[in-house]
């Protein structure tokens, strides 16, 4: 049976002091305000120089890599069903500029990034990364949404890429993937798994037809 994991209830916006208590592998539930932003937003805000879609105080300081399953009713009400994160590693190149622009100190997403990016980009900005769980707890997360105070750039970017501001209560679960020192839970776990991989490949040899650009080093990742 599983050991009970350490669980923390975190209020948003979170202070650096509050983040300092979060070790990798800790389960976190969030209460407060956060917002969604992904590649469309980063490109528009940073590359196109448009800046943030609203005052930072209205958006919050936690950025969720997510597009909700939601509709906007004819009367303007929002119907939010399930919410699930999308893979974050694709967004790494924008993050340094993004931290400066947005003032965010929590990134929530799927799969994390490399510890190199944490050290170079997250640590100087006092930011941590929270990963969603199983990448499919969309219904549980949907239950935690109390209110949608605003949706920005809906016309410019479409429903999926728009900025959804969400007021949440005991929203989760999430797991701390990187802490304020830039450690990565995924890399820590993989370092324990990798030594066992060679025995699985015993008796096999590389495929007859090779492919450019691939690796046979199982310590490598595909991200």
């Amino acid at each position, binding site marked *: 049976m599983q*050991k009970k994991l350490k669980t923390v209830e975190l209020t948003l916006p979170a202070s650096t002091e509050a983040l300092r208590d979060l070790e990798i592998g800790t389960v976190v539930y969030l209460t407060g305000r956060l917002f969604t932003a992904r590649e469309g937003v980063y490109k528009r805000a940073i590359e196109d120089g448009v800046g943030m879609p609203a005052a930072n105080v209205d958006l919050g300081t936690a950025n969720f890599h997510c597009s909700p*399953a939601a509709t906007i009713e004819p009367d303007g009400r929002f119907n939010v069903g399930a919410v*699930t994160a999308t893979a974050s590693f694709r967004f790494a190149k924008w993050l340094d500029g993004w931290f400066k622009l947005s003032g965010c100190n929590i990134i929530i997403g799927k*799969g994390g990034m490399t510890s190199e990016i944490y050290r170079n980009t997250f640590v100087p900005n006092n930011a941590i990364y929270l990963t969603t769980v*199983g990448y499919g707890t969309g219904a549980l997360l949907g239950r935690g949404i109390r209110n949608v105070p605003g949706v920005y750039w809906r016309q410019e970017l479409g429903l*999926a890429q728009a900025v959804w501001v969400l007021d949440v209560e005991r929203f989760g679960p999430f797991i701390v993937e990187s802490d304020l020192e830039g450690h990565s839970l995924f890399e820590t776990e993989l370092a324990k*798994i990798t030594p066992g991989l060679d025995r699985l490949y015993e008796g096999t040899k590389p495929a007859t037809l090779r492919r450019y650009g691939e690796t046979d080093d199982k310590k490598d990742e595909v991200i």
Partner: protein
Amino acid sequence: MIPQSIIQDTAEKLMAKAAIEIPDDYLGGLRRCADTERGDLSSFVIQAMLENYEAAKEDRRAMCGDTGVPRWYVKYGNDARPQGGPIAVEQTLRRATATATRTVPLRPNRVHPLWRTDHDNNVGINAPEIEYAFHPEADWIDLTTVHKGGLFGSDYRMLFPGDGLQGIKRFFLDTLIGFGKRGLACQPAIVGVGLGGSKDTCMVLGKQASCLRTVGSRNPDPRIAELENEFRDLGNSIGMGAMGFMGSSMVVDCNIEVGYCHTGGMPMSVHMFCLSSRRATARIHADGRVDYRTDPEWFTAYSRRETVDWSGPVAVAAE
């Protein structure tokens, strides 16, 4: 004549069922993973997913926020006669996809690959995919919708006969380890393997093996069935569980489908149907009755026929 209104109503119900209700066979398989998993983090993830399925059913909300890429599989009995013909059926399935996107709601995922333009309804050029099969001596239509994740966990490789079973095993491991890290494949998954065919057929067979066969089903060729068991156990011995954390829960089941291929080659594809294995099927009978189920019964003795003429028993599906 099967009325179009019944097809429309059934298709909309299927979209919601697939998005909200985890199929019993996958649920049973995941519960077995939960019973044997020793990794604390991997166990926590599986437990959260089991709670998520309950929340989805109670609230009637989608279990996953990422709709994946909804698609349709249509199997026509040879004597089925839908009102308006197959063109009307296609239009109905496209409309049901768009309607369900708004009513469930589902996230509108589909965009133009270059212009990134969006109809906000999961319908567009060549979307949703609609695949067809036929069944002898029947007057029903089977509709199946699958909402499979659209980004990670699938790969294709042209292997050669000289690569042998060891080459197949190696590519299987490569795919599971590569996409299993950080849980990109959203494992534990139903892993489908396509062997043979031409390149497109190889991909289609592997995807169908993961999405259209149930946990516990076995290929009728006993030697392939043995490989399915072996590969399931191999995947679970990697040392990796849910989200790429230490553990043993990688493969809920492994399904292999084959097609005859070029004499010089041995193409292989691997597909992973995720923690939200979304599929739902309905049989619409000629008299308008509708029976819902979660086993698509896509692969049959007829669909796997080996030679020119079909003379086998037609009444029962192979699984």
